[in-house]
C-alpha cells in the first residue's frame, strides 16, 4: 500500500507538486491521470525516493521514504520515466544486474529472471544484446528488471508510452495479473483509455494538485457526464479556472 500525504515540491518559483494526497491500495490498480506537466512524474519521483519532498510524507507498506529510503526502494518495483537499458548487455544480463543490486543471490536472480522472461514472453530476446531492441521489447526488459525482486508495490510512469496496440494489450494483461496477485499497482498516464480500461481507482491531478478522485463511475457522477473522457475534460477545465485565480 502506498500513502501520500500533502506532498509538495518546488523547482525555483515553479510549484511542480502542490499538496498531493492519495492512497493506492493492495489488489488494486490506481491510475494517476493528468495532462502533461501536471506533476505526475515529480510525484512518482518523490515516491521512489529519487527526489526529496519539500513537505509532506510518503509511506509504502508503513515505511517512510524520509526515514528509510532503502527499505522503501526494496518494497517498490519501478518503471521510471527514463527506461534506458545497457545496450552491450543481453536482456537477461540487464535483468540479472538489477537482481544483484536488489540483493538477490545468483540462483534466485536466475530463477526470477527465468520466470519473468517466460511470463513476459521474452524467450527470443533473453540472450540478445539489447542494442536494436524495439520500443516494446525495451519496455518489456525494463519491466522485467524492475520487478525482478518480486515487489509488493509496482509503480509505472507512463508505461504504455510508445507501445503499439499488441504490446499495450499484453502489458495490460500483465498488470491485471499483478493486481490478481494482490499487489498494489500505481501507474501514471495522460491517456483516458488507459485508466478506463485498467484502473480500479483514478486520481486526477492538475497543476500539482489532486482535483478529483474515485472510481470511473464516481468521477462520471461528480462531473455529471456520461462519458469518462468528457468527465475528465470537465474536471480539468474546472481546475484550470480555479488555479487561474477565478471562483471555484
Amino acid at each position, binding site marked *: 500500500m502506498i500513502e501520500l500525504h500533502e506532498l509538495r515540491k518546488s523547482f525555483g518559483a515553479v510549484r511542480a507538486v502542490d499538496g498531493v494526497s492519495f492512497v493506492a491500495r493492495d489488489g488494486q490498480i490506481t491510475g494517476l491521470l493528468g495532462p502533461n506537466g501536471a506533476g505526475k512524474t515529480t510525484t512518482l519521483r518523490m515516491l521512489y525516493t*529519487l527526489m526529496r519532498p519539500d513537505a509532506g510524507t510518503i509511506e509504502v507498506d508503513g515505511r517512510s521514504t524520509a526515514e528509510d529510503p532503502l527499505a522503501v526502494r526494496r518494497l517498490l518495483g519501478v518503471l521510471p520515466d527514463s527506461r534506458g537499458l*545497457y545496450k*552491450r548487455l543481453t536482456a537477461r544480463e540487464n535483468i540479472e544486474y538489477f537482481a544483484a543490486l536488489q540483493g538477490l543471490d545468483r540462483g534466485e536472480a536466475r530463477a526470477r529472471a527465468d520466470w519473468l522472461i517466460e511470463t513476459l514472453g521474452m524467450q527470443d530476446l533473453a540472450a540478445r544484446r539489447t542494442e536494436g531492441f524495439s520500443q516494446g521489447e525495451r519496455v518489456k526488459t525494463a519491466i522485467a528488471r524492475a520487478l525482478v525482486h518480486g515487489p509488493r508495490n509496482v509503480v509505472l510512469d507512463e508505461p504504455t508510452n510508445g507501445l503499439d496496440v499488441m504490446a499495450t494489450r499484453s502489458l495490460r494483461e500483465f498488470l491485471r495479473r499483478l493486481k490478481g496477485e494482490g499487489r498494489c499497482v500505481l501507474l501514471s498516464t495522460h491517456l483516458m483509455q488507459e485508466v478506463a480500461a485498467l484502473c480500479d481507482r483514478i486520481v486526477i491531478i492538475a497543476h500539482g494538485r489532486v482535483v478529483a478522485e474515485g472510481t470511473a463511475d464516481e468521477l462520471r457522477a461528480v462531473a455529471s457526464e456520461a462519458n469518462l473522457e468528457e468527465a475528465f475534460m470537465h474536471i480539468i477545465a474546472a481546475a484550470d479556472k480555479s488555479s487561474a485565480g477565478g471562483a471555484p
Partner: protein
Amino acid sequence: MSPALTVYIKECRESLRDRRVLLNSLLLGPLLGPVLFLVLMRLVVGRELEKAERPLPVVVINAERAPELIASLRQMGLEQKPPVADAELAVREQRIDLALSVSADYGADWRAGQPAQVELIYDSSRREANSDVERLRGMLESYGRRHGALRLLARGFSPAIATPLVIATSDTATPQARGALLFAMLPYMLVLTIFIGGIWLAIDSTAGERERQSLEPLLINPVPRDRILLGKLLATATFSLASLTLGLLAFLLVGHFMPTEELGMSLALGPHFFAVALPMLVPLVLLICIAQILIAAFARTVREAQTYLGLAQLVPLIPSIVLSVLPVKAQLWMYAVPLLGQQLAIMRLLRVEPLSALALSLSAVVTMLVAVVVFALTRRVYASERLAIST
C-alpha cells in the same frame, strides 16, 4: 555480493564489449607515447648520427691548385664533386648545397708563407646545409692549424706561442642525465596514458548513463549511491591501470630500439624502472580516475564531458614544463604535490639517481589523501537530486 562489486563487474564486462573503450584504453593510450617517442628519437637523433658519419659531398672548384689540401680533406671525409660553371648561381638555385673554391694565388701564397685563400660558397638561410658548412669549416681550420704549427716548429718556435688561450670543456651531465633530458616528456606521456585509459568509463559513469537514460533506473535500486560510485571508480581505475601497465611495457620495449648507445647515453628503462614506477603511480591512477568522474558528473552530455576531460588532460603538462624549463633542484616538498611528485620521481628513476623512501611515501600518502578528498566531493555530487534527472 556487495553492491560495489556488482557494479564493478558489470562496468568491466560492458566496457570489455565496447570497441571504443578497448581501442582507447588498451591500444591507443598505451602505444601513443612510446611510438611517438620512438619516431621522434629516430628522426632527431638518427639524422644527427647520419650527418656525423656519412661522407660530406662538396663541389670543389680548381682543386688542382691545392692537391695537398684536397687530399687531406678527403681523408677527413670529404667527397669531391666535379666543379660547376657558376657556383654562386648553383647555390642560389639550390642545385648544390655547398662549394669550395681555391683561389688563383693559392699555390704562390702557400709557398711564400702568406695566408692562402679558399672560398666557401653557401646559403646560410638554408638551415639544413648549415651543419655541412660547419663540418667543412672545421676540417679546413684543423688543416690550417696543423700547418701553422708545423711552420712554427720549422722556425724553431713552440706552437704554444700561437695558442695563448685554451678552452677546456667538461660537461657534467652524465650519459644517463643527457638521456633523461631527451626523455623530459616521458613522465607526461605516462600520465597521459593513465588519463586515456579511464576516460570512457569516467564519462560513461554519469554523463553516458544519463544520456542513455539508464541512470535513473540504476539509482532506484536499494543501494547507497556511494557504493555505486565506488564500483564505477574501481572499474575506471582498472582500465586506467591496465593502460598504464601496457604503456610501461611498451616503453621498456621501445627502450631497446632507441639509438641511445650511439649517442653515449643510457636510460634506465629496465625492469627496475617498471617495478618501481608502476606501484608508485597507483595512487595517482586513483586520483586521476576519481577526478575524471567528478568532472564528467558536471557535464550534461557525453560530448560536453569529452570537452572538459580533454582540457583536464593538459593539467599534468604544467609540472612537465616546469621540470624541463626551470632547472629546479628537487626539494622534498615537491614530492608532496600530486603529479609533480610522480613526474619528478620518474625523472630521477630514469637518471638512476637516488630516490629516498621518504620522498616516495610522501608522494603516495599525499596523493591518496587528495584522492579521498576528491572522492568525498564526488560523493556529494552523486547525492544531489539533479544527478539522475535527464529531462
